[in-house]
C-alpha cells in the first residue's frame, strides 16, 4: 500500500517534468538569494567587528552561504534530471544519484531550519560579545596614541552617531572611565589634581560625555559637561532632561539592529524551505512515475507515482533490515569463516578423490 499514490498519464508526466524543471530553476534562484543574504549579513557583522568580542554569531551567515551554494548545485542537478527524465535512454544514469540527492535536499531543509533557530538562540551570545567589546572600546577611547588601539575613538564616535546611542548600557558608562587622555590634562591645575585623587585608581573621572553622544534633535545646544549638576547650566534639570543626549545604550541599539536584520530574513528563509520541499516531493513523484512507465510494455501508458512504495512502517522495517544486512556483511563472522574453511576442505577432498582413480581391481 503505497504512500500518497497518484496516477500519471503520459501527458501528466510530461507536464510534471516541465513544471519541475521550472520549479528547480526557481529553487536555484532561491539558493542564490540565500547566498547573497548570507554575504550581506556577514559584511554587516564584519563592519562592526571591532566592538564584538567573539565571532559565534558568524555561524548564521556562514551557514546561509554554505546552504545557498549547496542549494544552487543540488537544484541545478534536479533541473538536469528533469530534462533527461522523459528520455528512456538517458534517465537510468541518474537513478543511482537520486537517492543521494534526496538525502542532500532533506539535509538542506534541515540546515535552513537550523539557521532560523540559531538566529534566535545566538541572541544572548551576541549581547555578551557586544557588552565586552563595547566596554573595551570605551576603555581604550582615549588611547589614540597607542598602536592597535588608535582607531577606537573614531570607531566609537562613528558608532554612537550612526546608531544614535551613547555608552554601553547608557550614557552613565562614560562617567566611570577616563576618556580624556593624560596628554591633554594639565597636571599643575588644582582641579585636575583633585579629580585624580578622588578615586582609588587615580583616574581623571568626570560627569561628562564625548560630543558623539549629543542628540541633534535637542532644542538646546548640547550639554556635555557637568551633566549631573543641575545648577551648572541655566534652566536645566538633570533627572527630567531626556532630549539632550541619546538615551539608548549602544549594546541595545546594535542588538536590535542585528535581530531586526535576521528577523526580516526569516520569512524569506521559510519560503525557500517550502520551495525546496516541493521540489523534493515532485522529484520523487517524477522518478517513480517514469520508473513505472519504463517497466510497462507500452511506455506511453499510465503509470503510478508515489512517495513511498510501502507505507511508513513497512518502509522503515525494510530500511532497518537492509541496514543490518549491510552491517552483517561488513562484519567478519567467525562462525561462517570456519564453516567456509571446512567446506573448502571437503571440496578439495572430493576433487582429489575424483582425480585419483580408484585402485584397479
Amino acid at each position: 500500500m503505497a504512500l500518497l499514490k497518484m496516477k500519471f498519464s503520459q501527458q501528466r508526466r510530461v507536464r510534471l517534468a516541465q513544471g519541475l524543471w521550472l520549479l528547480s530553476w526557481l529553487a536555484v534562484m532561491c539558493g542564490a538569494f540565500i547566498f547573497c543574504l548570507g554575504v550581506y549579513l556577514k559584511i554587516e557583522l564584519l563592519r562592526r567587528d571591532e566592538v564584538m568580542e567573539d565571532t559565534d554569531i558568524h555561524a548564521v551567515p556562514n551557514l546561509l552561504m554554505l546552504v545557498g551554494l549547496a542549494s544552487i548545485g543540488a537544484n541545478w542537478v534536479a533541473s538536469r534530471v528533469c530534462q533527461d527524465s522523459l528520455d528512456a535512454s538517458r534517465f537510468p544514469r541518474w537513478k543511482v544519484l537520486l537517492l543521494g540527492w534526496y538525502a542532500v535536499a532533506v539535509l538542506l531543509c534541515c540546515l535552513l531550519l537550523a539557521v532560523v533557530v540559531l538566529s534566535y538562540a545566538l541572541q544572548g551570545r551576541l549581547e555578551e560579545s557586544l557588552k565586552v567589546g563595547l566596554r573595551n572600546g570605551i576603555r581604550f577611547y582615549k588611547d589614540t596614541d597607542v598602536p592597535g588601539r588608535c582607531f577606537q575613538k573614531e570607531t566609537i564616535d562613528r558608532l554612537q552617531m550612526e546608531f544614535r546611542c551613547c555608552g554601553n548600557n547608557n550614557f552613565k558608562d562614560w562617567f566611570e572611565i577616563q576618556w580624556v587622555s593624560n596628554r591633554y590634562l594639565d597636571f599643575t591645575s588644582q582641579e585636575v589634581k583633585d579629580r585624580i585623587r578622588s578615586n582609588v585608581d587615580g583616574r581623571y573621572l568626570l560627569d561628562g560625555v564625548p560630543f558623539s553622544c549629543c542628540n541633534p534633535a535637542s532644542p538646546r545646544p548640547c550639554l556635555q559637561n557637568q551633566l549631573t549638576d543641575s545648577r551648572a547650566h541655566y534652566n536645566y534639570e538633570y533627572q527630567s532632561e531626556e532630549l539632550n543626549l541619546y538615551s539608548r545604550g549602544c549594546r541595545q541599539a546594535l542588538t536590535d539592529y542585528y535581530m531586526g536584520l535576521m528577523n526580516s530574513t526569516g520569512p524569506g528563509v521559510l519560503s525557500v524551505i517550502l520551495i525546496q520541499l516541493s521540489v523534493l516531493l515532485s522529484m520523487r513523484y517524477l522518478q517513480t512515475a517514469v520508473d513505472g512507465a519504463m517497466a510497462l510494455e507500452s511506455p506511453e501508458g499510465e503509470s503510478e507515482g508515489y512517495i513511498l512504495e510501502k507505507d511508513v512502517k513497512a518502509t522503515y522495517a525494510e530500511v532497518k533490515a537492509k541496514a543490518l544486512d549491510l552491517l552483517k556483511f561488513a562484519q567478519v563472522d567467525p562462525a561462517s569463516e570456519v564453516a567456509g574453511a571446512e567446506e573448502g576442505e571437503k571440496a578439495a577432498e572430493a576433487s582429489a578423490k575424483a582425480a585419483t582413480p580408484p585402485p584397479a581391481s
Partner: protein
Amino acid sequence: MAVLKVKFTKTRRDKLAQILWILNWISVVTGVILFSLGLFLKVELKKREELMAEKDIQYVPNMLIAVGLIACIINFLGGKICYDCVDSTKFLRWKLIMLPYIVCTFFFTLCVLVGALMCYSMHWELEEALNLGLMQAMRFYKDTDMPGRCFLKHTVDTLQIQFQCCGNSGYKDWFQIQWISNRYLDMSKKEVIDRLRSNVEGKYLMDGVPFSCCNIDSPRPCIQQQITNNSAHFNYEHQTEDQNLWMKGCRQALLEYYTHIMQSIGLTVLITWLFELSVLTGVRYLQTSLENMLRQGDPDSESDGWLLENSFMETARTNLSIIKSLGKSNQINTANNGDPNIDVPSTSKAHYGPDNVPPKEKMETS
C-alpha cells in the same frame, strides 16, 4: 553637388533600417535614463530645500525630465518608421512624415545640447542660493521654539555631521551669530551681561561652535568652547590645530557634492546628444536613399543617400526664398502703381457680336 553622398544597395538599405531600428530602441532607453536622472536631481535639490534661498534652480531638472520624455516619444516613433522602412510599400505611408520628423528631431537634439550646457551653468546660481540659504539657516539655528524654523537646528546639525563641514565659509561664521537661544542664558550672570553689552546689537556672541562641527578623526576630545583662547586648554594651539573641527565650509561641501552630480549628469546628456545626432544622420540617409529609390522606380536598384541635396549655401538660399515667398502670397499685387481701379482690357474669348447694332424695324405701320 550633394553633401556627403553615399551609395546604397538594397541590402545596405535594409541593414541600415534594421540597425537604425535597434539604435532607436536604445535611444528610448537613454531617454528613460535622462528622465530618471532629472527626477533624481529634482529629489536631491528638494531634500536640501531649507538650505537654499529662493532661487530658480528647479528649471534644470525640469528641463531634463521634459527632454527625457520627448526623447522617448521621438525615438519610439523613429523606431516604428525604421522598422517599416525595410519594406518599400510600407515606406510610402511614412514618406510625407519623414522630412518633418527629421527636422523636428534636429531641433530637439539642439534642446538636448542646451540641456547639457545648462547642467554646467547651474553652478553659479547654486552657489548664490547656498550662500544665502546657509546664512539664514545659521541665523535661525537657535529658534527651535518658533514654528516654521524649529527644525533648522536639526537640519544644520545633521548637515554638518553628514558633509563633514562647519559654518558657511568656515567655523568662524559661528562666532558672528548668536546660536544659543536666550531661553538658555542666565541673564542674571555677569558674564552673560558682559557679552551682551560687548556688541552693538546685544547678541550673545562667543568663540564657540556647536557640537556638530567636531571632527571625528581628532585624537583629542573635541574642543568646542573658547576656541581662540590658547590658555583655556592644555597643550592647545589655536593657529596650528586643524584636526579639532571640520575645516571645510558647508557651502563649499554642498557645492562640491552638487557639482559632482551635475557633471556626471551633464556628461551623460552629452553622450546622449552625440548618440541622438548619429541616429538622426542614419535616418536622414535612409530617407534620402529610399526616396531616390522610389524616383528610379526599381525597388532593388542602387540609390544615393545624402545629407543635403545641394551644397549647404544653396540649400540655405532655397529655404530662405521659400520662406520669403510664403510671406509674399498674402500681399496685394503692386503693378499699375497699386491702383486696383484702372481698366485692364479683358482678355476673355467670349464674343457677343459687334456693338451699336440698330434695333429691328416694326413690321406694320397702320
